[in-house]
């Protein structure tokens, strides 16, 4: 019962914060609402007792992706005071269309999938089990993914690198 109340509080909070991302007039406010919304999703994972996923959510989306967004905002805009500016352009209807499309696909996928395990009272999965699956059963795909990331990293450095004498 208590868990359900907490679930609803956080669900409404996530929706409110996500609405803030879309409707706030300043890009910086949007980015900060996004952090809150993603952290709320992390709390949802805690309620589902998947601690590892929750912490990964905090680490990747809370600590890394949104910091990247904020840094990009800082470096690309001349005015740091976060004053209101026009963020809607002629792309707005297309963005709406894309948003509805993604939401529809996700909803259909979520509703039509036969979920494994007990969805009413989820149980915690030990970190040992996750790491065994990741590093032993799916070792090769894991290594391939890390090689891909490494290549992307090296590529980004080469693109961003200042040439000698420039």
């Amino acid at each position, binding site marked *: 019962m208590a868990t359900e109340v907490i679930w609803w509080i956080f669900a409404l909070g996530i929706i409110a914060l996500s609405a803030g991302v879309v409707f706030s007039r300043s890009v910086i406010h949007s980015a900060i609402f996004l952090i809150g919304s993603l952290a709320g999703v992390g709390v949802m994972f805690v309620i589902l007792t998947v601690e590892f996923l929750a912490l990964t959510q*905090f*680490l990747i989306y809370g600590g890394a992706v949104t910091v990247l967004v*904020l840094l990009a905002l800082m470096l690309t805009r001349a005015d*740091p005071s976060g004053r209101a500016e026009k963020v809607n352009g002629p792309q707005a209807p297309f963005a709406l269309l894309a948003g509805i499309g993604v939401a529809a696909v996700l909803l259909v996928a979520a509703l039509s999938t036969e979920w494994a395990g007990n969805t009413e009272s989820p149980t915690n999965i030990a970190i040992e089990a996750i790491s065994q699956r990741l590093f032993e059963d799916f070792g090769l795909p894991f290594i391939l993914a890390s090689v891909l990331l490494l290549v992307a990293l090296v590529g980004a450095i080469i693109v961003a690198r200042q040439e000698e004498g420039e």
Partner: protein
Amino acid sequence: MLFADPLFGLPSWIDAIIRIVIVVLVMTVFVIYSTYGERKLVARFQQRLGPMRTGPWGLWQGFADAIKLVGKEDIRPKNADRWVFELAPYATFIPVLLTLMVLPFAENWGVRNLALGVFFVFAVLGLNIVGILMAGLGSGNKYALLGAVRAAAQMISYEIPLVVSLLCVVMITGADTGNGVGTLNLNTIAALQEDRPYIVLQPLAFLIFFTAMLSELHRAPFDIPVAESEIVGGYFVEYSGIRWSMFQLTEYASMWGFAVFGSVVFLGGWAWPFGVDSHWALQLATTFTKALAIVVVIIWIRTTVPRLRIDQLMNFSWKVLLELSFLQLIVNGIILYYDWPQELLALTSAVGAGFLIFLIIRHASARSTKGLLGTYRTLGASSS
């Protein structure tokens, strides 16, 4: 999740609140007295007396400062982004407070005993940057913005060696637990060090951890984000009164958190040298002594080493610490996979630590170098 039984058989959430209050009170006392202790120590290093007027030996100085700060006017610049500016101090403080929740201060004594303790600490600490960026962006001040960019760049860079050096220790716990599976639980990590602390096996990892910790805490010589002679006061330059003291509280609280965390992971926490069966008061005293030793070394370094330049700082992280930490990880992996004796771990790591110290001393004593730790030019040399 829970440590043993709740105190006095209370419901677990009341028990949690009591534990949080105790941990926060200890943290507050530490913050008040570490500002006093820092001023006293720095004064000693500079042949001064430090605060002497408030109370015997100036012992009430911290409280006097706290009262003064609370009484100050809370100024918000006209140009500031109101909500971002006002919420930033809380956004920096909450992650630090959360890390204190998983630290074991004595055997089975902390707020919560998470199976993923180590991962929790660095996952939550990453959120700290968001608050600093909020302060920089919300102030509407170029100095604050520069300070926030510097802080973010520095903290992101040093987080990688920090995490990898912790992974090195977590790998070794796999050899100690007996079933070959390592642990991320801080309480178990401390208990596994009953015979020898992991600093003996991993001196290089400890050095990397300590350096990265200085950088994450913005302590000298890595205090570039708050360098008062370059960018006035860093990301919190526009804050005053209670909000400014929130930032200061965050700084010292995270120093406390990191000191306890480092003493648990590397120095044996409550278990070494008195063993896991010692009295809880002794365990508590052991943890506190180790944590305070780390704090004293941090202050000592502040008075000894001059501030680095931003390019030297970045070079040191990406070209020295990152490589050495990965090397340590790979060497550990090989040794542990073939079940070679643990003395070999200590030996290889000590060689690496020696190499790191040699590198630092060589670059610090050279008059003009162009190498791993950045470019130094003597005065008058032409810059292209």
